[in-house]
């Protein structure tokens, strides 16, 4: 889509648009951090490995949050890494609280802010009962929207609030993070699920935002589709619809379709091999092996889910929709 345009951009704009300088600067500062080792290793080789890891998306592992969220590519890399590392949580059907998910997020990015996790949880729980348990896939898809489209959602919250207040925000003001956060809180506490705003008006306001925003936004056709299927909707209703939309998931490009979220045969084999190695005692895998979670000893994150025992009786009514898709 940008294929031809990139040739007509001025150099600095091209570099900024593709975040070339972000990575180059980061590479150089990484190099400075490791300058003692560089002399024997070679500078060109260092850069090669750096850019290869950026290409593969492993560069965000254990990095500081400011870097992890710095580019869309970093965000998708983080989402994909999170999914791949903790897929087993979903596979085992464990339900976790926002706090638990936050611990998992922090295993990959130590200073990941709690605020973002909470916002994602609000989407799943429709801003209700924040200590509830959530299924892995519900949380993951909500988290994806919240994390990937963070800035967009801030602006949406402001627009929504203005509409609720009866103002028609013709001028889109991109709020700072603090004001956005404040507004979204307000929005949530005031509206009951029955009211909200009129969808068509909401879309008109979002349209200008979608056109102008310099941050990543969901494709406007899909936003339109979401909003044209209802008369009125609430802020969280809107976010939930975005989170569940397959097209938007594909547009972000970090995660597979919901049905395939828990499938990854090569990874399963790897894991099985590892488990077999670690445990030493040969587990009876060969015959009835790969797909079934039941056969595998619990081997999810080092953090054992805290609510394992409560899982059975809470499963049905807590998760907002389906909780496990392991059979497909």
């Amino acid at each position, binding site marked *: 889509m940008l294929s031809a345009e990139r040739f007509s951009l*001025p150099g600095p704009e091209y*570099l900024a648009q593709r975040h*070339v300088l972000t990575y180059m600067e980061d590479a150089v500062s*990484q190099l*400075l951090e490791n300058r*003692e080792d560089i002399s024997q290793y070679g500078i*060109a080789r260092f850069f090669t490995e750096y*850019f290869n890891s*950026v290409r593969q998306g492993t560069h965000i592992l254990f990095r500081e949050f400011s870097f992890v969220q710095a580019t869309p*590519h970093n965000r998708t890399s983080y989402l994909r890494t999170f999914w791949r590392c903790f897929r087993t949580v979903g596979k085992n059907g464990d339900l976790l609280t926002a706090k638990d998910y936050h611990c998992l997020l922090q295993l990959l990015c130590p200073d990941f802010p709690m605020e973002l996790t909470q916002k994602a949880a609000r989407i799943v729980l429709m801003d209700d009962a924040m200590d509830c348990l959530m299924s892995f896939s519900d949380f993951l898809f909500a988290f994806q929207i919240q994390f990937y489209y963070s800035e967009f959602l801030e602006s949406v919250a402001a627009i929504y609030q203005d509409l609720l207040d009866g103002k028609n925000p013709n001028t889109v003001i991109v709020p700072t993070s603090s004001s956005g956060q404040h507004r979204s809180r307000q929005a949530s506490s005031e509206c009951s699920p029955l009211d909200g705003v009129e969808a068509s008006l909401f879309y008109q306001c979002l349209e200008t935002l979608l056109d102008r925003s310099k941050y990543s936004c969901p494709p406007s056709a899909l936003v339109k589709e979401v909003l044209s299927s209802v008369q009125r909707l609430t802020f969280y209703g809107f976010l939930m619809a975005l989170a569940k939309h397959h097209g938007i998931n594909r547009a972000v490009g970090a995660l597979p379709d919901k049905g395939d979220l828990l499938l990854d045969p090569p990874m399963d084999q790897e894991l099985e091999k590892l488990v077999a190695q670690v445990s030493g005692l040969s587990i009876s895998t060969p015959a009835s092996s790969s797909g079934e979670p039941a056969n595998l000893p619990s081997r999810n994150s080092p953090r054992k889910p805290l609510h394992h025992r409560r899982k059975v009786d809470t499963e049905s009514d807590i998760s907002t929709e389906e909780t496990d898709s392991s059979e497909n």
Partner: protein
Amino acid sequence: MKMAAAACEKRRPAPNPAAGPVRTGAGAEAPGRALEGAAEFLRQAGVTAMVREALLKVLEARPEEPVAFLADYFEKLVLSSPEAADGGGDPRGQPQRLARALWYVRLAHHSHRTAFNNNISMAYECLGASGRRKKPGVNGRIYSELLRRICQDSEAPQEVTSPLLQRIQCRDHEAVPFDVFRYGVLTCFVLLEFVAKADTLYDVLDDGSGVADKRVCQAVLGTLEEALGASDFSVPIRYLEAGSKLGPDCLAVAMDRALLERKLSTSMKREEFLKKAAVLFIAKVKPVD
């Protein structure tokens, strides 16, 4: 481009503060001095120059995926570094030099003429330099090999490209001057693009069925030939003439006529179509002596 380079230059010595604990050394050091030290280190170690060169290459080529481009770029630098390339004279050196030259000539699309020409001269130098001996220059053998590899790595079938190669190859022991070298490489790339376009043209003609009607194909090829047949392309107006002959109306009329007089419908295979189209192109290529 200069502006961009200057901007990077200005920013580079001060690494992104968000990138965590950058400063090594003792905490007692004043931040200003630490930064100066870092800048000094980067200059002395050659990082500054390397980064500048890399960014210039990115700006020249404007790749769709700059990160992948940079990864490949630095990898090539590793491979061509003194330890790797200086190794043992010819047997190991030549394939590497060839690979590097190939990489150079592909860095920028040929429509970016300045960048493309730059890269070609880099490739020429790289092929001409042979280890520690004095520069032997580029001979016909390695030149032809390079062209062969360019064509080989593309989608185009061999029977389409080999007539071109025959036309622009040099004899094995001939010295190849830079002009000829550039002409040959450029012609290869243009032909490959031409063939790719012809391939999509065939997609249109066969309408998804896999086989296209022979008469329609011939009508299209005929129109193409007529347009190219306008001969002397040193006169700019010829380009306009050729362009208008290939305009939608002319082409549509020809195709329509072909369809009308269709009797027994036979088909033309994709390979045949490509080959015939390529022949038209190659006929226009000036042979290298």
